[in-house]
C-alpha cells in the first residue's frame, strides 16, 4: 500500500508503444526532476524492435539519493493498449493509473484499489493539431503536462528544456508549449492536484551530470588517446561506437585540414572488428572495440591470439541477457566467466568493473593504459543498464598533464644501445612483461615475427616443451603483476565489524548500497566490499577470510563472480552465498534485503536447533 503524503520519493512508469516518439517526452520528465535538484534514476525497458512493441520508461525519484530500481510503481502513465491490462495490474495498491480515456476503458480493466485517472489525450490532441503524425507526438507532451500538474513540477523547467531541445528549430517551441499546457490545465481542472506524493525543489544534485555509460565510455577512450575503433553493431554496445564517432568528429579533427586524427571502421563482423583492433595495436596505436556477449564469443579466437602473442587490446563488453541471443534488450552481468577466461587453452584476462558512467569514463582511459602496460586484452565490463540508461554521476574530469602509459615500447635509440639483449618475449624486469617494438622503428633491429604458435624468448618458432612452458610460466608472473595494477576494491566501513559481509560489483552497487542502509536501520551489521576489477588482490581474500559468510550479489543465474572468487582465491564454496537477480530488470534493494534476511533468519533457527 502506498504511504500517505510524501515528497520526492516515488516511482513513475510510462507505458508506451515503441517508435511513437514517447522517448523524448519521457526524457523531458527525468531531466525536469534532475533540474529540480532531486536525485533521479530513469530506466528504459525497451523491446528488440523498431516500431510497434511495448516499451516502458521507469523513473525513480529519491530525495535520499537511491538510484537503484525499487519494487512497486506508484504512478503509471499507460498509453499502450497492448500492455494496458498488465500495466494496470503492476500499479501498487493505493497508487495511480493515468490513461487515455478517448476510448472508454473496458470494465474488466478497472481496479478498486487504485486511482484511475482518465484523460482524453488523443481527443485533445486531435482537437488541437491537424497532422496525424503531430497528433501522435503532441499526445506525448499532453500526458507530460498532466504529470507535471499531478506531481507539482515547475512547468518553467520543462519549458526551458523544450527551448533548449529545439534551439535550432524554434518554430517547434510554441506547439510544444501549447500541448504541455493542454495537459497541465486538464489535470488541474479535473483532478486533485498535486497527488499525496509530489515533487519539491531541492538542491541535492551539486555539479553532478545525467549521462549514459556508453557515452562516458567513448569519451574515456577519446581522452585516453584511442585513435582507432573497429566495431560491429550489437545492442546494447552500439551507442559506444556512435558516441566515439560523434565526439571524434568534434574533438579529433585537424582544424586546418579538416582531416581526422582517428580511424573509425564498422567491420563486417565481430571477428574482423577485433582483428582490426589487434592489427592496429600491434602497429602502435591505441585501438578498441565495443561489443556484447555474443560478440565476445565470436572474438574469442582472436582474444587468445592477443593474449598469447601479447598484443594490447581494449574491449568494451556491454553485457545483456544471455545465453545465445538471450534477452538482447535487457540487462545482465552474465559474461563474467566468458570474458575472464575467453578463448581456448589457458587464458585469463583483466576485467574492469565500472558501476557509474564516471567510472566508465575513467576505466575506459585506464583500460587503454593497462592494455599497453600489460600487452594483453583488457575488458571493460559494462552492462545494458549502465551503458544505455542515464545515470546521475560525478562530472567527467581529466588532468591535462596526464600522460598515456604506453608501457614497454623500445624506440630506435633504445635498440641502438650496445649492451641491449632484447628478445620480444624475454622478461628483463622480472615482472613478466617483455619489451615490444613497433614496426618501422629501426632499419635493422627490433624486427620480429608475431605468431600464435609457441616461440622462444627471441620470438623464434619452437616446439620444445620446456621453452613453451617457460613462456607460459612467465605469463603467470605477468598475471601476478596485473593484480597490483588493477583498481583495488572499495569498502563501506572503516574496519570489518560483523560475521557477515556482502560483495557486489557494477550496476548491482546501486541496489546494494540502498540495501546496506536498510540493514543499518534494522541494526544488522553487514560489511560490504565492491569489486572494481579482476584479478583479485590479497585484500579481496582478506575480506572473505574475515567473515563467517559472505553474500555475493550479482545479476546472472549461475553466480559467475562467486565461481570466479572460489576458483581464483581457493575459497571454500560454502562460505560464499549467492544473491542473484537474472530476470533482465536491474536488481532492486528489496530483493537483496529479502534474500539475505531470509537466509539469515533461517540460519539463526538452524543454529538454535543445533546448539
Amino acid at each position: 500500500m502506498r504511504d500517505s503524503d510524501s515528497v520526492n520519493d516515488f516511482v513513475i512508469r510510462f507505458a508506451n508503444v515503441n517508435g511513437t516518439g514517447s522517448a523524448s517526452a519521457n526524457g523531458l520528465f527525468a531531466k525536469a526532476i534532475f533540474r529540480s535538484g532531486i536525485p533521479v534514476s530513469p530506466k528504459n525497458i525497451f523491446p528488440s524492435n523498431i516500431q510497434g512493441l511495448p516499451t516502458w520508461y521507469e523513473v525513480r525519484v529519491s530525495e535520499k539519493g537511491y538510484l537503484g530500481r525499487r519494487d512497486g510503481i506508484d504512478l503509471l502513465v499507460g498509453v499502450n493498449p497492448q500492455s494496458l491490462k498488465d500495466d494496470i495490474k503492476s500499479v501498487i495498491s493505493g497508487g495511480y493509473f493515468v490513461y487515455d480515456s478517448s476510448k472508454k476503458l473496458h470494465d474488466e480493466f478497472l481496479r478498486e484499489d487504485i486511482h484511475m485517472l482518465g484523460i482524453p489525450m488523443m481527443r485533445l490532441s486531435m482537437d488541437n493539431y491537424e497532422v496525424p503524425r503531430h497528433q501522435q507526438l503532441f499526445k506525448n507532451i499532453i500526458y507530460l503536462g498532466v504529470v507535471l500538474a499531478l506531481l507539482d513540477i515547475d512547468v518553467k523547467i520543462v519549458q526551458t528544456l523544450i527551448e533548449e531541445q529545439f534551439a535550432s528549430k524554434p518554430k517547434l517551441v510554441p506547439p510544444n508549449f501549447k500541448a504541455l499546457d493542454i495537459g497541465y490545465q486538464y489535470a488541474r481542472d479535473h483532478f486533485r492536484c498535486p497527488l499525496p506524493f509530489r515533487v519539491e525543489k531541492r538542491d541535492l544534485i551539486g555539479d553532478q551530470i545525467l549521462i549514459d555509460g556508453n557515452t562516458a565510455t567513448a569519451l574515456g577512450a577519446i581522452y585516453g588517446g584511442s585513435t582507432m575503433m573497429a566495431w560491429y553493431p550489437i545492442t546494447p554496445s552500439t551507442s559506444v561506437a556512435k558516441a566515439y564517432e560523434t565526439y571524434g568528429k568534434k574533438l579529433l579533427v585537424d582544424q586546418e585540414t579538416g582531416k581526422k586524427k582517428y580511424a573509425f571502421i564498422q567491420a563486417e563482423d565481430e571477428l574482423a572488428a577485433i582483428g582490426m583492433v589487434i592489427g592496429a595495436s600491434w602497429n602502435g596505436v591505441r585501438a578498441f572495440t565495443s561489443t556484447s556477449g555474443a560478440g565476445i564469443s565470436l572474438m574469442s579466437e582472436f582474444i587468445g591470439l592477443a593474449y598469447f602473442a601479447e598484443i594490447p587490446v581494449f574491449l568494451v563488453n556491454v553485457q545483456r541477457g544471455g545465453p545465445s541471443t538471450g534477452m538482447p534488450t535487457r540487462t545482465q552481468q552474465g559474461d563474467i566467466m566468458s570474458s575472464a577466461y575467453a578463448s581456448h587453452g589457458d587464458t585469463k584476462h583483466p576485467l574492469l568493473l565500472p558501476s557509474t558512467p564516471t567510472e566508465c569514463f575513467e576505466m575506459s582511459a585506464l583500460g587503454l593504459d593497462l592494455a599497453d602496460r600489460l600487452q594483453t586484452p583488457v575488458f571493460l565490463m559494462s552492462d545494458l543498464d549502465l551503458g544505455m540508461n542515464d545515470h546521475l554521476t560525478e562530472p567527467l574530469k581529466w588532468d591535462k598533464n596526464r600522460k598515456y602509459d604506453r608501457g614497454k615500447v623500445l624506440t630506435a635509440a633504445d635498440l641502438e644501445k650496445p649492451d641491449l639483449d632484447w628478445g620480444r618475449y624475454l622478461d628483463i624486469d622480472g615482472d613478466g612483461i617483455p619489451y615490444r617494438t613497433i614496426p618501422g622503428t629501426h632499419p635493422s633491429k627490433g624486427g620480429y615475427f608475431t605468431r600464435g604458435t609457441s616461440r622462444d624468448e627471441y620470438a623464434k618458432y619452437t616446439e620444445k616443451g620446456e621453452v613453451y612452458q617457460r613462456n607460459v610460466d612467465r605469463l603467470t608472473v605477468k598475471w601476478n603483476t596485473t593484480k597490483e595494477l588493477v583498481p583495488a576494491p572499495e569498502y563501506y566501513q572503516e574496519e570489518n565489524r560483523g560475521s557477515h559481509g556482502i560483495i557486489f560489483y557494477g550496476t548491482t552497487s546501486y541496489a546494494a548500497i540502498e540495501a546496506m542502509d536498510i540493514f543499518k536501520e534494522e541494526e544488522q551489521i553487514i560489511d560490504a566490499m565492491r569489486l572494481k576489477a579482476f584479478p583479485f588482490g590479497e585484500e579481496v581474500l582478506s575480506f572473505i577470510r574475515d567473515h563467517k559468510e559472505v553474500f555475493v550479489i550479482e545479476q546472472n543465474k549461475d553466480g559467475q563472480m562467486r565461481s570466479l572468487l572460489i576458483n581464483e582465491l581457493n575459497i571454500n564454496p560454502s562460505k560464499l552465498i549467492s544473491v542473484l537477480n537474472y530476470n533482465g530488470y536491474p536488481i532492486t534493494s528489496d530483493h537483496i534485503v529479502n534474500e539475505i534476511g531470509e537466509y539469515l533468519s533461517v540460519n539463526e533457527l538452524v543454529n538454535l536447533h543445533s546448539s
Partner: protein
Amino acid sequence: MSYTKPSFSHPALPRNKVGYLKRDYEGAISTLCAGCGHDSISATIVQACYELNIEPHHLAKLSGIGCSSKTPTYFMSNSHGFNSVHGRMPSIATGANMANKNLIYLGVSGDGDTASIGMGQFVHVIRRNLNMTYIVMNNGCYGLTKGQDSATADFGSVSKSGGGESTPFQAIDLVGMAMELNASFVARSFSGDKTQLLPLLKAAMSHQGFAFIDVISPCVTFNNNTGSTKAYDYVRDHIDVLGSLDFIPKEDEIKVDYDQGTEKVITLFDDTKISLSKLAQDWDPTDKYSARDKLVQSKKDGHILTGLLYIDPTSKDLHQILNTVDTPLNQLQETDLYPGDDVLEVINQGFR
C-alpha cells in the same frame, strides 16, 4: 623449427639504392616440401623488394594459417611479420594499415585461408580498397593437413588425397570474384613463371589501393598428379598470358615508343609507370568490363588466363576514404590528441 642462413657475404655483392644486399631481404630456410611452388614465390618477393629499394623495416608481412601463410618466415627476416589466425589476415592488415599509412603491407594467404574461412574478410578488404598487396598462393588443396580439396579445386580435378575421385564441387575463382567486387588491381600468375610474376609483384606493391595477385602454385606433394588442374604440367599446357608487363621505376624514363593498340603505359600514384605490351585487341587493362569479358572467354576456352587483368590507378584507398590526417596515427601524441582545456566541462554542461 626455422633455420637461419649463414650471415657471411662476399664484399663485392651489389647493393641496391638504399644500401641493402639482396641477402638482407631473405628469410629463414624454408621448411616447405622440396620443389614447392610457394618457395619460388618467396624468392620472387625477395627479388621484387630488393629491386624496389624497399627498406625492410618499411614493410610489414602478414599472413593467416596454412603452408602459404608460413612463407613470411622465409623472406624479409628484418621486417616485422604477423602470422595471425586462419582466414583473418585481412582484418589484421586493415588495423595495421590504419595505424601507420607509411608502411608497405604485404599479405600472403592461400586458397584454403582465403576462399573458405577467410572469404568474408577477403571480400570486405577488397570493398574497403585497403592499400596492400594480397597474394594467394593457390594450389587447390590443404597441404598442411595432407591434401584435402580446397574451394579453388576445379570441378573434375583429381587430387592425391581424393583416392582417385574427382572434385564434385564447382571451384571458386578468386580472380573473377575480385573483379566482380571492383578490386583496384587484379592479376593472376604462375609460380613457375618468375619472369611474369616479378614485374606483377612490383606493380602491385607500387599500386595505391588493394592489389590482388592469384598465383597458381602447385603442391608437389598432394596435388601435382595427372588429372589435377593445379599440377605443373597441366598449368604449363593451359596457361594463356595476357600481355606482358614491364615495370618502370619513376627515375627511369620511358625511351621506347609504344604502339597504341598493342601497348599501354599506366602511371601509378607515385609516378611509377607500368607498360603493358602485346595487348589483346578487345582488352583494355583499365576497363574492367573488357577485362571481365576476357576472363570469362578464357575460362570458356579452358585456359588459365594470367597477367595483369585490371588496374584502376586512380582509386581512393581506405585512408583517403576515411580522410585521415597525413601523419601516421601511431605517431600522434598527447599534445596532438588532447581536446583542449575546458572542453570536458562544456561536455559536462551538456549533460545537466
